[in-house]
């Protein structure tokens, strides 16, 4: 189980970073989403993995999983939606304003106006 979660974090990170290094806004946003998953799962896993012991108190239960990382990740998920939305909006605004969805400043391709 630990191996599965750790390798999933690794795969998500690798995929996320590869996409973040692309040159257009959309794959970069996808890459950041993948990284968000990786980071959220990573923080969640810092409470260690427990199966079948949700942190909801009830009689007779003695083992609960660590609730704190869950609380932290819960808000992180919601906030990351807000941040994704802002980044998407910025990317969209840049594209609509310049008809260009590169993430980097583009050197003027043709300064003399030939096309």
């Amino acid at each position, binding site marked *: 189980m630990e191996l599965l979660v750790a390798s999933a974090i690794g795969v998500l*990170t690798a995929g996320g970073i590869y996409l973040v290094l692309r040159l257009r806004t959309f794959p970069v946003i996808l890459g950041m989403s993948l990284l968000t998953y990786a980071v959220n799962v990573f923080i969640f896993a810092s409470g260690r993995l427990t199966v079948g012991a949700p942190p909801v108190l009830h009689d007779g239960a003695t083992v609960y999983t660590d609730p704190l990382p869950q609380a932290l990740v819960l808000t992180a998920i919601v906030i990351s939606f807000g941040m994704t939305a802002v980044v998407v909006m910025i990317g969209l605004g840049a594209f609509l304003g310049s008809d260009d969805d590169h993430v980097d*400043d583009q050197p003027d391709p043709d300064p003399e106006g030939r096309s």
Partner: protein
Amino acid sequence: MSLFIIVALPFLGALLPGVMSSAGRAACAGITFTVSLLAFLGLLANLPAVLAGEVVTARIDWIPLLGLNFNLMLDGLGFFFAFLILGIGLLIIAYGRHYLSRDDNMGEFFTYLLLFQGAMVGIVLSDNILLLLVFWELTSLSSFLLIGYWKHLPEGRQGARMALAVTGMGGLAMIAGMLILGQIVGSYDLSVILEHREEIQADPMYLPALILILLGCFTKSAQFPFHFWLPHAMAAPTPVSAYLHSATMVKAGIFLMARMWPVLSGTPEWFVIVTTAGLVTMVLGAVIALFKHDLKALLAFSTVSHLGLITMLLGTGTAFGAFAAVFHILNHATFKAALFMSAGIVDHEAHTRDIRRLGGLRTLMPVVFTIATLAALSMAGIPFLNGFLSKEMMLEEAAHTKLYGSYYIVPVMATLGSLFSAAYCFRFIGHTFLGPVRDDYPHKPHDPNPGMWMPPAILVVLVVLIGVAPFLVEDLVKVVTAAVLGEAAEVPDAHLKIWHGVTPALYMSGIAVGGGLLMMLVFAPLSRLWETAPRPEAKVIFEGLVEAVAALARSFTFTLHNGSFTRYAMIGTVAIVAAGYHAWATGTVSETTRTVQAAGPVAIAAWGMLVAATCALVLLHRNRFLSLMLIGIVGLIVSIGFVFLSAPDLAMTQFTVEVVTIILLLLALNFLPNRTPVESTVLRRVRDAGVALVAGLAAFGLSIHYLLRDAVTTPISEFHLANSYKGGGGTNVVNVILVDFRGFDTYGEIIVLGIAALIIFALTEALLDGPVRARLLNRVPDQPIAGDMHPMMMVVVTRVIMPVVLMVGFYIFLRGHNEPGGGFIAGLIVSIAVVMQYMASGFAWASARLRYPYHGVIGAGVLVAGLTGIGSWFVAKPFLTSDFTYVRIPPFEKFELATAALFDLGVFLAVVGAVMLSLESFSRLARRAHVPDTEHPMDIDPSRDELASEQAGG
């Protein structure tokens, strides 16, 4: 009156003139005057205590852990300076009311002036050096505003910038020096520091601290080589020059040297640095002043020179030197403020302050002539005026001072300084007022109304009074001197009197006055010589320095920050991985303490799907629609993983967020190209893949490392689990953490979420107002619009399902405290229900039924959460303390009421508002672009009908 009120009054009062601008000029000046007068009277109420030798204090702990306390004290020295600041402030306010023209915004001026006044009073009353530093910086800032008050004048702006740069840098140095001092003593309280003379002077850090603090003092008080900013600050309106640059701000450095005198002075380092700087400044300032043609520039350099004189006296480190310095501070404040105001009147009346265009004003402006002449003669050191007395004392002190092993340097330099000082005073009088009346003044001058000449006249009365009867102020000067000396030395047994007998000082004085008169006779050739001599221009040097530093900063920034996000991401990734590897390679690896849990076939299958979807996403990301689907799969598996690993709340959140994120990305993709073109070379892709794989491997390594080991210390979650029900009244520990244990955190997070949504809204507004609007209107959609824009099935289903979903959201919200659920999840569910209406029935239909704007919903959420937190204040508990109780209303079962639920309601509202505002903003772009509004959403696209009818008609 409490010291707190004295310091606070100018700051509080500063708001009044600013908002009263429309009430008229007299009202603005009147309220400013009243505020200052109140503070002044409050200060005077403390006079008996101060004269009795008491130290009045007022203390509040501000940040005790840092040693930063709001401690104020009023002793002789503080009283003296506060008296000058507030007393001369009153005269300046009266003068400024008549000086400023109708075009100047008087409210703004007096607001700045009061801010400055408050900061100055704060400096001189501080009993904590950190607090003093705060006020010190405030004077730099408020003087920047005052010097640059005439924003339309480039000289004003440049002068203000230069003053801020020089005094600001000095202030930074002083912060460092003060911190060292505090470290040596172990306290930042001034009264404590002043008792540790030996300890400080024996410390190896004494010299660095001394130099840093003196840098602050010298820059503020315009001592060589930092004297150059003061003349450029003369671009300020004259009331500002008279106030800041003669009586108050430039004296702040002097004040601090006097304040620190007991602990810093008396060492060879202090003596050499301070005396030398003072002497050089005194002579240099006096020489330059003589050849300045602008009345205010002349006065500015004379101020530089006199500040040098006072610095030199403090530098000698003797009790008599301090005594003379205090007396000269008083005298200089009186005659110099009067002179500045006189120069301002001349400028105001004759419309020029160029001394070459003036002369003969004696008969035209007899009153101003009398005032200015008396003040200038006092500055020149003529008997029966107060300047004579302190100058005598200065020369007396100079005659006994041995510098660099010579008994001659100081007396000769002091005499030389006095000589030039006398010369420029005579020039000020002679070239402005004496001589024949001219007929080419830019404006025919005459005496102004008494409102303008009364303030300097009052000061000149003091000049004469102190000059004739110095014993009147002897007690005050001695009390102040005692405060300067502290326990380091006894107050000298000298008296302030006119006749000291035939002493070396008298000879030196005579030489100075005689030499000054002689210089006036040969002024014309001297001036020509001065004009032709090459001189370094401080302003050019300063600007060159600033430009060089700015160029360095620019090249540094632009090299690192070249606008390529990809490069930053690459550097960041590599740096993080390298740092992690370094830690791994140099640290010790502990033994594994946890065993690997077996994974069932379902878990392995889910893992396989996640890995497959991620790999497919990377390989196929050029097809953007497909990649949205793939990322949806990833999100779904992550949600399922959360369920499996005992995190039901997370699963629900992740699942609902997934839905709104995909909708958001779809809305964006509506405008973006559908495919990502191939751009980077194979080599580059291989390189990126390599970096990504290494980073992924690192993440895997880090994760598996701690997943196989227990936490080093017991997690605080034990506390949460134990107190969740007892203290928080809920069994869902995650929710109790969110709304109770870490409620403040959550409160911040919903605010962030709200701000993010507002940013999106603002960006949309900006886009729709700009050139993008036209582009959107002319846009031809690259995909054919669906003929059936609002499918009937979908419309019916979404409307039927709406109340059901709302009910589910309500249920999830209510159960949140005890079962998985809560405000975040309920908010997301309700948002999805509303979004479905937009999607099915169209934007126009949905927004027509929108009763509350989403901004309002966000605001209401933050407000509800905040008010819930504030509510606990009413029962004297800290912010966001929660409470709960169980009630029973027959025939229902017993149920719980918790304030945390109210807080969760705030979270719910903020989430709904933020999500909906974001999505709505994106749809507004789309709506502007090409989607026609329709009145009947359940119908097929009406534009087709029109098209059909047109075709039929045509």
